[in-house]
């Protein structure tokens, strides 16, 4: 298609989007108003099921089936990262310590910050998963914090140590087990907010670690076969 044709098609789509978006925005209720139809329906249900964090009640109880789809999307993307970013025949992977990535030249202040933040961040992640049904947070948020926290070791300049504490097969198994457990919980034992919360935390943590691990391997270790 010629640039001119693309411009015309693009303008057509942009105009349609602008018109529809403006109409939709004009139809919204006022900012901070007193009418909350969704809240009025979800709040009594959350209170009736003793889940103080209404967001968790919606995620894992009232709309658990939607969350099931979301979790499977996350698993599919982690799986895609593992499959697409694997080492192919024309490439080879170096050992983690082969380059200067072991004990790299990192400022002491940065290294110390990484080591000090690691336990604090891990504990924050566990807290957010464990208290997901009580206070803001939950399996997803806590899982992402747990999954990204261990990469503070890389910030401290020690890639081999990071590679040691996250054995890929273990995290692949954890990911699969947690995803399977979540499907069973969501379909067979509806309403188990605490259990679903914990399983989602494990699943999300494993998915984040797996996807990031593949990106780390590509960025640091994989190269064309010589």
């Amino acid at each position, binding site marked *: 298609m010629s640039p001119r044709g693309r411009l015309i098609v693009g303008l057509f789509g942009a105009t349609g989007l602008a018109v529809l978006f403006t109409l939709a925005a004009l139809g919204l209720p006022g900012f901070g108003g007193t009418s909350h139809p969704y809240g009025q329906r979800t709040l009594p249900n959350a209170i009736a099921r003793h889940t103080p964090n209404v967001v968790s009640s919606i995620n894992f109880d009232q709309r658990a089936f939607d969350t099931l789809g979301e979790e499977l999307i996350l698993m599919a993307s982690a799986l895609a990262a593992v499959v697409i970013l694997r080492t192919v025949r024309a490439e080879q992977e170096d050992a983690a310590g082969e380059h200067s990535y072991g004990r790299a030249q990192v400022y002491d202040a940065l290294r110390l910050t990484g080591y000090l933040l690691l336990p604090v961040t891990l504990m924050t992640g566990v807290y957010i998963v464990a208290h997901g049904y009580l206070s*803001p947070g939950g399996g997803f948020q806590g899982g992402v914090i747990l999954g990204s926290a261990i990469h503070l070791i890389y910030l401290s300049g020690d890639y081999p140590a990071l590679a040691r504490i996250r054995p890929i097969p273990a995290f692949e198994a954890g990911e699969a087990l947690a995803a399977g457990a979540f499907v069973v919980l969501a379909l067979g034992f509806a309403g188990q907010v605490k259990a679903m919360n914990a399983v989602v935390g494990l699943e999300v943590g494993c998915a984040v670690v797996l996807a990031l691990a593949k990106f780390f391997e590509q*960025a640091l270790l994989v190269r064309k076969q*010589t």
Partner: protein
Amino acid sequence: MADALPVAALLLTAFMATAVVLTRDPARQAIVLSAYGLALAVLFVVLQAPDVAMSQTAIGTVVVPLVVMLAVHAIRRHHTREPDEGDER
């Protein structure tokens, strides 16, 4: 007057989003993207959505910029290695 905080948070978010677009170097862009993620998290807190703000902080300021940085690094590494292939090793 009560709307001052949401308006300020929205303006900060719009400012950071513009900064992300105007940053041309991908490695710098990842850092600016991280700051934009933080501004977005502030907006969510102001709009009383702490759960979303937590997800945004973890994903938008840590995971996504890290993935971008690693991808940029991988691309640069593969590009610089190709011309002098076979010289070393």
